[in-house]
């Protein structure tokens, strides 16, 4: 950490509470990249839209009473039968695309973030265990990781969904199985270095239980790379879920995510009705890019090798 930032921060806030804490340092380093901050703002906006979709969407796209089949496949900007403007057009059932996208974002983000979180817990635990226990446990877990990473993620997900069938829960299970290996590998790598440190030895001398050493001592010190991987994996999970749903293997038709919305527009696109597929795709793209931008900057900030 350079003194320049420290001094730069001091005059801006003459109050006593501007002591440099690791968190503040992290925030100021993160803010060095304007594009990453923009990514964070965009992503926050998307997340808010997704969370509050039922209150801000112009229409509930799943309430059939609100849909007017006469308004089907209207171009963006058309005023519908009920004096209602469809800014992004309507799909074949007269559903407002803007509302559909807002609700779709909810499902996409929920599945993406949910599976990334579960995979993180599972993967990080196994990674920690592998690094801490060593020997046979390590070999077994890491062989499993190697085996899985030698197959492309789409193939593993395809295989699992072929066994389990469609459904939101099954997609989450598939994504967790696809992703846990990345977390396990990352955490094990860091934990192998950390477990040779004195504080672990000290904890062992105090005869603390293993779970306590693992989760209270080892894990917090493995967090930085884990956060980076988790961010990137959320984006990957969202993209993979969209792909699976597009292929008809993901979420059911009653709860369409962005991928399914895009798939629904496929047949109409050949007759020039582009908006049914186009706008959900743009929403998906913006979501993924904004998460990736944040992740890229996090990687630079949290990487000890790049510390100034």
């Amino acid at each position, binding site marked *: 950490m350079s003194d320049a930032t420290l001094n730069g921060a001091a005059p801006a806030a003459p109050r006593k509470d501007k002591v440099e804490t690791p968190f503040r340092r992290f925030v100021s380093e993160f803010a060095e990249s304007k594009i990453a901050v923009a990514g964070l703002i965009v992503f926050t906006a998307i997340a808010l839209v997704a969370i509050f979709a039922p209150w801000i969407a112009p229409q509930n796209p799943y309430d059939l009473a609100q849909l007017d089949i006469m308004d089907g496949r209207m171009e963006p900007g058309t005023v519908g039968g009920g004096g209602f403007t469809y800014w992004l057009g309507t799909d074949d059932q007269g559903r407002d695309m803007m509302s559909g996208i807002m609700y779709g974002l909810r499902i996409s983000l929920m599945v993406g973030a949910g599976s990334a979180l579960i995979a993180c817990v599972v993967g990080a635990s196994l990674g920690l265990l592998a690094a801490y226990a060593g020997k046979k446990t390590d070999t077994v877990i890491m062989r499993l990781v190697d*085996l899985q990473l*030698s*197959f*492309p993620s*789409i*193939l593993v997900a*395809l*295989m*699992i*969904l*072929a*066994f*389990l069938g469609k459904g939101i829960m099954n997609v989450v299970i598939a994504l967790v199985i696809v992703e846990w290996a990345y977390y396990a590998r990352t955490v094990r790598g860091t934990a192998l270095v950390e477990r040779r440190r004195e504080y672990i030895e000290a904890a062992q001398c105090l005869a603390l239980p293993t779970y306590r050493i693992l989760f209270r001592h080892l894990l917090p010190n493995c967090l930085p790379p884990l956060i980076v991987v988790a961010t990137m994996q959320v*984006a990957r999970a969202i*993209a993979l879920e*969209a*792909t699976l749903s*597009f*292929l*008809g*293997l993901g979420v059911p038709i009653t709860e369409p995510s962005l*991928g399914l919305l*895009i798939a629904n*527009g*496929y047949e109409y*696109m*050949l*007759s*020039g009705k*582009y908006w049914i*597929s*186009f706008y959900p*795709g743009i929403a*998906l*793209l913006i979501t*993924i*890019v904004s998460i*990736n931008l944040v992740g890229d900057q996090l990687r630079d900030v949290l990487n000890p090798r790049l510390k100034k």
Partner: protein
Amino acid sequence: MTVYLVRRLIQALFVVLAMSVIVFVGVFAIGDPVEILISPDADQIERERAVQALGLDLPLWQQYLVFLGNALQGDLGRSFVFNEPALKLILQRMPATLELAFGAMFLSILIGLPLGLYAGLRPNAPASKAIMAGSILGFSLPTFWVGLMLIMVFAVQLGWLPSTGRGDTGTLFGLHWSFLTVDGLAHMAMPALNLALFKISLVIRLTRAGVRETMLMDYVKFARAKGLSPARVTFVHVFKNILIPVVTVVGLELGSTIAFSVVTESVFAWPGMGKLIIDSINVLDRPVIVAYLMIIVLMFITINLIVDLTYSMLDPRVRLETKGT
């Protein structure tokens, strides 16, 4: 080397066995085997006879051994939909997928190398920044959506290229290939580009990084000091040296290109094995699903084995490490 080869072969064999257990348990134990193997329109008596004939009354491990024995003889069941051996169906579709995958690899080098070279030689030029931004987009864009947009622009609005299918095929070695006819090439252009998108970004980044590293090497400085023309330095001294790692990585990506062709084939209705598996999953044609999974697993293990062996030949450290443990 022989010891290493044997060890890797044994390892690969174990992986194949493990995967066959997973696929077997996945399809036969999680799903209902009667429903999987017997056509849904069979009546009760036919059903019971089939259960006995297929040995479904045996314990699971015995069933697995029967499955394995049949699989070793190339019998992976018959498709419900096409009423043909599942293995034959998949092998018939394989040339289309391979053609598409190789087409995509070819495009990724054809487009990625020059762009990466330019971005590496002039890292600060606006065009280079645009190329790099484009490559980030290439990593982030959902493949299937780009495919749809390609169809929309080039097939629907401009009408330059056909939107779906394989077009006319020519015959070579007794198999049908699209790249032998003009119509086939026109059909192949969009799917191949779509599949190549991710790889193009990868090649751009690899080439750029390679060029920037190589430009700082002493032999490049020396070549310049000798007064060689910049073109000669770039294409003979720099280009040759970055080509090997780039081609290696692209070769390694063959497996994942084949896997991701599932998506592209579905978008462009390309009649390859990827489209077949998606259709089969949607209509629950499970013998085909099992056969596809077993073949693709075998394919990946072979690719991984070849990659590992090539590495160990190129890099003696890999061999020594395995010997040590």
